[in-house]
């Protein structure tokens, strides 16, 4: 019998063997219990995250075609060389960057603006908050399909309103020039409400007496915003910036549902292209090389975020 006993109390061992053996036995038992608790999570992470990630890296250097796995062979850097000669990949990279560059200021700016507007005692605030937050509640598929109807060039309500105000009807998603900007707008529209709430929480954490002191020192509203609100909002802003950035890099559902990457690949994104080459065209090797390249970039950005946030905390 083993009595594991209380910490600090004198444990009595009533089985043969030295005290050291007993300790080893307890330790072994502790390990068995702990790994039983870790087991399911470890197994699932291994199967669906760690092994796929390692496989991705390996496949990137092979010509793996899903339907002929037996003829798979190592091709060195061929995939990566082809990648930079592939006009659709280069286009998807440019499109993704274009999306990131436009959606970040638009979405974060909107979120901050809404939060500042709401950061005030007002009876109707709950109503406005719910209104701004409402797009967050809808799934990406739902908002993509919904906007497809709203933006219909002929019958859509947006063009009806535009023509009512004397603006000519726009092609939106059917134009290579406008399609990506339309997706930028829809994405920012959907995401801003959520970040507004995070900004609002950040704003409400700023103690009121800081503002009072500044007011006594003769600072006007604008100065208080620049010298107090913005610096104190920095940790929140960094968090929002990085999470939006990473999310924006992974753009997939909106172009998939709204434009299928068109017209003329103007909304093809990197993750969508990974899906198309790897899943639709079954060129697993080639898709993996894109995934490896792009995953590394996103991974580095995430790592930078941790460093930044840590410095903020210290």
């Amino acid at each position, binding site marked *: 019998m083993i009595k594991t006993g209380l910490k600090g109390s004198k444990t009595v061992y009533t089985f043969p063997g030295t005290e050291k053996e007993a300790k080893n036995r307890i330790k072994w038992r502790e390990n068995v219990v702990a790994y039983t608790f*870790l087991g*399911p999570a470890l197994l*699932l992470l291994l199967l669906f995250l760690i092994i796929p990630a390692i496989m991705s890296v390996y496949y990137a250097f092979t010509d793996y075609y899903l339907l002929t796995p037996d003829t798979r062979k190592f091709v060195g850097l061929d995939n990566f060389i082809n990648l930079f000669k592939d006009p659709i990949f280069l286009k998807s990279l440019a499109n993704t960057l274009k999306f990131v560059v436009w959606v970040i200021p638009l979405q974060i700016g909107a979120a901050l603006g809404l939060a500042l507007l709401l950061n005030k005692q007002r009876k109707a605030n709950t109503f406005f908050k719910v209104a701004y937050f409402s*797009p967050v509640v809808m799934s990406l*598929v739902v908002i993509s399909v919904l906007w497809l109807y709203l933006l219909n060039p002929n019958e859509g309500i947006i063009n009806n309103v535009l023509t009512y105000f004397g603006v000519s009807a726009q092609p939106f998603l059917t134009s290579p020039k406008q399609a990506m900007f339309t997706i930028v707008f829809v994405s920012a529209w959907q995401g801003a409400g959520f970040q507004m709430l995070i900004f609002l929480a950040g704003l409400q954490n700023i103690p009121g007496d800081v503002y009072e002191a500044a007011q006594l020192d003769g600072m006007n509203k604008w100065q208080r915003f620049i010298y107090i609100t913005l610096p104190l909002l920095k*940790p929140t802003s960094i*968090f929002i910036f990085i999470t939006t950035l990473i999310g924006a890099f992974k753009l997939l559902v909106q172009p998939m549902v709204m434009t299928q990457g068109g017209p003329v690949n103007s909304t093809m994104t990197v993750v969508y292209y990974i899906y198309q080459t790897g899943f639709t065209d079954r060129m697993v090797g080639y898709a993996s090389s894109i995934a490896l390249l792009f995953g590394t970039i996103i991974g580095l950005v995430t790592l930078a975020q*941790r460093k930044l946030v840590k410095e903020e905390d210290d």
Partner: protein
Amino acid sequence: MRRKFGPLTILEYICLVLLAVLFIFPLFWMIASSMKPEAEVYNNMNSIKAFLPSFHPSDWFISYKQVLTRFHLLGYIINSLFYGLCVAAGSVIINGMAGYAFAKLNFNGKRVLFGLLLALLIVPLETILISQFTIVHKLGLVDTRLAVILPALAGAFNIYLFRNFFMAIPAEIIESAKLDGANTWQIFLRIMLPMSKPAVATVGTLAFIGSWNDYIWPLMVLTDKSKFPIQVAITAINSTEPVYTNQVMAVLTISTIPLILIYIVAQRYILEGIGGSGTGIK
């Protein structure tokens, strides 16, 4: 002293209202269009009528009846509920167990595994979709419900969240439970989980929402329509001729109702989970 209704205040309210219209009009249009005959949807586009349901209440639910008979909508909703509940319950148990081990149990390799866990937070899931699919393919799970559920269960972030919550539970409580003869499993189920209700609610809710909204993964692993979750069904319905706007809007509305309910009930936990953790991932 500023007057109560200065010009600035009025300007503020105009901004607030115009922005509210911008953010909420699609939702209104979606619901209103689902509650009128197809011919009326594109009438009166320039009047407030576009945002009002039919003036005949008997017309309100016709499109709903039509989609419910044309498509196995109820089946898709039940599928989504099933996937969502399995993923939510599974996430809480599996990640909770692992979080408990990291927080309160001693074992060999703890530091290494915890380091690995933190490293896993960086892996962008979207980029390994293809090799995840090849794994599911090799396991013979393609076109099974398990293929939708299993990969969604374990998550590094959720394990980390549970671990942080469990760390805060004092050791004395665990010791006294041990004295009362409770084993590790009982301690986990009767003490750790009940004492961490916010963590359970956060992980459960976010897992459900994530599963409900997931599109690309079920689209990849399922081919049998009867197993489709609602999100995949939406795009299938939207491309099944003849496409009627009022019917599509009815489907969109139905698929959004569960989410609205969840956001109302669990809003506190959802915010704490993502937003409130603010600098959560350290």
